[in-house]
């Protein structure tokens, strides 16, 4: 398989050729093709518009409304957004979310690349064994993984304290440790997909280039950085984007382990959206936080695309 350009980047190109997309087609044919295309698109568009586009619009509209327990009280302008500036919980959530992303994304990417480099040249059995093991937490599901960790970290019945001899230590109830355990568990549920992707991408690197470089006396590191790294760049970009989005949206872990505590030390933006909407019933404000989260993720993704492209 030839090296595929990052899909999103590749999609920009056909737009340029739009003028020529109808070349050689009569008006009647264009009309017929358009009608039949939309008939094919109809079922999918129905679901997309009804359950993605409309909620997005509602989300933005609500973020400008004064909408609490008593229903819609009126137009709030930018009040919900201005509240964010004063909100200590939001500040804690923002800090923790960024810490999670900044720690988890590079470690997940680097570690999964290392594992993949170590296993992709192995024989079929050990390769699929390791790939399978690292993917298992993803398949097992965040809830099952989270409840078992809750038990392992339990202050009284938990295995960690029994093995480490730290009797009664409440790892998830202590401000200085709770977030790090969240990150550790997030890490174990995040590296499966990158490993699968990297193993496939490394297997597709043009072997003749590597051999040619080695004949010319290139070292291992040179081969990696000069030949493999540029060729797996699209995969790295994809891994960075999905890991970033997953880390931003990390929810089950927080809800089941700490509920944002102790003292907001594991509060994340995503959990605050949920908590504000369902516990506080403050829908206008919850949607404003959601909009801000979407903007932050968009900025992070855009930066990653920029950096990856200039490389």
């Amino acid at each position, binding site marked *: 398989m030839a090296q595929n350009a990052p899909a999103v980047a590749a999609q920009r190109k056909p737009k340029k050729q739009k003028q020529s997309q109808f070349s050689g087609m009569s008006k009647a044919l264009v009309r017929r093709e358009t009608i039949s295309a939309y008939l094919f698109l109809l079922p999918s568009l129905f679901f997309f518009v009804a359950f993605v586009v409309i909620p997005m619009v509602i989300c933005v509209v609500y973020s400008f409304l004064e909408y609490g327990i008593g229903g819609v009280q009126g137009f709030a302008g930018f009040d919900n957004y201005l509240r964010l500036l004063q909100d200590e919980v939001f500040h804690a959530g923002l800090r923790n979310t960024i810490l999670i992303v900044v720690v988890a994304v590079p470690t997940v990417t680097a570690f999964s690349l290392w594992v993949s480099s170590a296993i992709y040249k192995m024989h079929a059995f050990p390769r699929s064994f390791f790939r399978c093991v690292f993917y298992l*937490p993803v398949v097992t599901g965040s809830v099952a993984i989270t409840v078992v960790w809750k038990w392992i970290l339990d202050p009284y019945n938990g295995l960690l304290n029994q093995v480490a001899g730290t009797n009664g230590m409440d790892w998830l109830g202590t401000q200085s440790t709770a977030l790090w355990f969240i990150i550790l568990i997030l890490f174990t549920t995040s590296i499966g997909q990158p490993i699968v992707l990297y193993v496939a991408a490394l297997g597709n690197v043009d072997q003749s280039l590597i051999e040619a470089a080695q004949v010319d006396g290139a070292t291992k590191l040179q081969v990696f950085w000069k030949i493999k790294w540029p060729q797996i760049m699209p*995969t790295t970009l994809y891994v960075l984007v999905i890991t970033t989005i997953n880390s931003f949206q990390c929810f089950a872990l927080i809800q089941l382990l700490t509920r944002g505590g102790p003292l907001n030390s594991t509060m994340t933006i995503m959990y605050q959206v949920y908590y504000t909407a369902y516990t506080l019933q403050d829908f206008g404000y919850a949607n404003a936080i959601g909009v801000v989260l979407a903007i932050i993720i968009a900025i992070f993704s855009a930066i990653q695309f920029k950096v990856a492209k200039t490389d």
Partner: protein
Amino acid sequence: MSTNPAAVKVKKTDLSGTSTGYKVFAAVILILVALFFLFPLYWIVTGSFKDAIEINARYPIWFPQNPTLDNYLRLLEHPALRWLFNIVFISVAAMVLTCLTASLAGYALGKKRFIGRGVLFTIIICAMALPKQVIVIPLLQEMTFFGLNNNIWAVILPTVGWPFGVFLMKQFSETVPTEIMEAARVDGAGELRTFFSVVFPMIKPGVGALAIFTFVNTWNDYFLQLVMLQGDEMAYTLPLGISNLQGEMSSDFGLIMAGAALAAVPIIIVFIAFQKYFTQGIAMGAVKG
């Protein structure tokens, strides 16, 4: 130094791996990390067979001494099988509907030239980059409006609407040669016939990848299940049921492990059985996507 035999020797050591020291080091680390990854699963399964004394023991019990089914029996006092049925139904329905609608739409986007194609595609890409969970709150209000809150369709419908599948299917449809479609048309096949008897068989690997991907993601989309189904115990999915059990009886770990095992083991068996397609599918989806 750059004599021929030397170069050949460098190449050989490289193809077989690297220096032995590094290889041993890498293997040891890999095995240790693999054990660390397998351990939670081991702890779920063994924990689900431990009795209350072993669960609450103050020292590690690595393997149940008196294996018991008590945890599973107590789990069945809750509608756990109903929860299992719900999550299977949701995942299968979302998978079938997504594959059908996305392959039709992806084919139109990939192979047809029509007015509004560029704009539509740009909208789809933008929507994909947005965090799905942000729209879940307004989505609940929409579902309540339609009378679908605490109904499992409230989880299925938005999952089908997510545009990743359309995007993936477009990438696959583009690889279908136009000549084959034209030949079918010359032979008198209509639009739908052309799609189902010519295009669909050619994009089958892509549909398989999308099916697996949708199934696992739907199974694990805990946030959507929590928001949509929290109000009715009979509408719970297994992950949601376990999380509620955990909330109610936070120290009854045996019961919770039985629930976790019931949720995890079936999907792990499916995963191991289809491992090849699974990993291929994910890799294909990403390389193309």
